[in-house]
């Protein structure tokens, strides 16, 4: 079995038409291997979040191909995309995006409940909450915990469905520096412990220290490392 968990070929995303046309992504081709901790960096408006939305199947590319675990996702219909997101992807958002009315535990269980695997959901969610250090907070309402705790809960939620890839969009962007460091360490340790692939979008590359790979997005184009080499299409 191939180690490639993500393959993107000639990905383009164009917003608007005519004079207002904006090329958010231009011919982006990236391959990510299993267990990699990949950083996508770039300045504000460079297209890094657009790229993450494409990988997360939250938005559709104008052209190009995205393969996750060997499946061409660009041909899937909406229902299958939802199911694919639920089974293969985990999300960590800048603003945590926990459902405020639910408890921390219920939030973490949610992806599994959507899958319909309720029986083991609670056990797995509790285990993950223990790992991220929220054992004593799990029955609190999600809007009653701190930002750092909320992001830890979001990490647990992102991992509970044993996804192929965890996508994190500016996970430290809404945290103070101490909490941000804790979150970075937590993600890295989870990646190591579980062999989990992480794709993290950030504007603050230094916060993450050593990582497996860095991709820079500039004006919608992807470069390996810090703007050194333009990534070309593999296929």
């Amino acid at each position, binding site marked *: 079995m191939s180690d490639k968990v993500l393959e993107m070929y000639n990905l383009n995303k164009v917003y608007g038409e005519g004079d207002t046309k904006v090329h958010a992504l231009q011919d982006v081709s990236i391959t990510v291997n299993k267990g990699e901790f990949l950083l996508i960096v770039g300045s504000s408006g460079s297209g890094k979040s657009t790229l993450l939305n494409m990988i997360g199947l939250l938005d559709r590319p104008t052209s190009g191909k995205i393969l996750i675990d060997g499946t061409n996702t660009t041909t899937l219909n909406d229902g299958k995309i939802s199911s694919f997101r639920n089974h293969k992807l985990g999300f960590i958002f800048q603003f945590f995006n*926990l459902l405020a009315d639910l408890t921390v535990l219920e939030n973490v269980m*949610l992806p599994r409940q959507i899958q319909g695997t309720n029986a083991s959901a609670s056990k797995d969610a509790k285990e993950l909450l223990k790992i991220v250090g929220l054992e004593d907070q799990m029955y609190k309402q999600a809007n009653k915990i701190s930002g750092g705790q909320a992001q830890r809960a979001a990490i647990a939620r992102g991992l509970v469905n044993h996804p192929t890839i965890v996508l994190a969009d500016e996970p430290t962007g809404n945290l103070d520096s101490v909490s941000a460091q804790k979150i970075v360490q937590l993600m890295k340790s989870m990646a190591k412990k579980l062999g989990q692939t992480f794709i993290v979008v950030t504007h603050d590359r230094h916060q993450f220290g050593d990582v497996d790979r860095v991709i820079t997005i500039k004006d919608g184009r992807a470069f390996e490392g810090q703007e050194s080499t333009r990534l070309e299409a593999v296929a």
Partner: protein
Amino acid sequence: MLFNKRGSLVGAVLAVTIGILVIHVNFVIFQGLFDAIVRDLTDYRFGNLQITDEEDYIDKSDQSLVNWFERIPYVEAATPRLSSTASINITKFGERIEETRVPIVGVDPLRDIRASTVHNTIAEGQFVYSRNSIVLGSNVAQDLGGAKVGDSVKLKIVDRYGQEQLKRFIVTGIAKSPGGQGFDYSVVVHIDTLRDLMDRDGYTGSIMVKLNDPTKATEVKDLFLRTFPNEDFIAETIEEAAEEQLAGFRSGIAMINMIGYFGMMSSAFAIVTIQMMLVNGKTKEIGIMRAIGAKRRDILIIFLFQGIIIGAIGATVGTAAGLGYTIYAKETKMSFNNSLPLEVSIQWDKVIQTALISFSLAIIASLYPSYRATKLFPVEAMRNV
């Protein structure tokens, strides 16, 4: 999970509840009023079945017809009636007061009290008991300068040959019915006296038949018409006999019911609005749910389920409140305009129909907002914070 807008949900439930309650209140008041009028017309004037003749008067013996009816097990009693109009005058304190074209009803006092409840409307004195006693309707008594029991009045009537006939009567009673459906605008005398005055010996205007089971009216009517095929009898159930009086009411009730159902439609629009508000207020949550894998169908189910909950609670509370009001109206013998006691009944088929319609409307009203919720794209929904 998307249910935390309790205020909005309570509003939606209240909309359904109030819609149902309005229909129940309308039903209690207007159907109760209609049924009360039917009841009074039945009790005072027509009976459950009224027999008349195409030739204005029945010339067959009233005794034999009454006996024929009273042999039928469904018939409680039957009584003859005769009607005309008369002028009536009274002299009070040397002044002569006259009222013309006063309806006059001739009754058989012994039979009438079994087939009709007119005798119960006697507010003062007593019912007709002798050939020269007269009961004045309260309005007639008032028009005659406040005639009282014991007063003497003179009646002038034109007989079948066009001759004026005069007779003096002693007022034995004043009739005043709740709601005025009785003989408040008429006078009541002994039927034989009226026959004499009209020179219609042996004639009867109508036979009023009271049934112990009103649902058998058509059956008794058909039996009667089959038994007397060669006579010119007209047999009518209360609905047929009182059609003229009831027709206006019927359309009025239909209109009121329509207003009730419009109210229900308004509730449905309220639910659409509230559900739309909930969808708009929950855009981010819908986006998050969609992002972590919820399908459009899952979102649809959540909002439809919300509609079902709104419909179920609203229909239950509304029906309970409506039934509570109905029972209250029944137990307190609620009356219209403080006079006519309403005929309040619980019609379970209508209660269930109203609840089911409301419940269904709540679900239907949730369809569009639910559909709108499914159309949100996760990335746009989450951006819309």
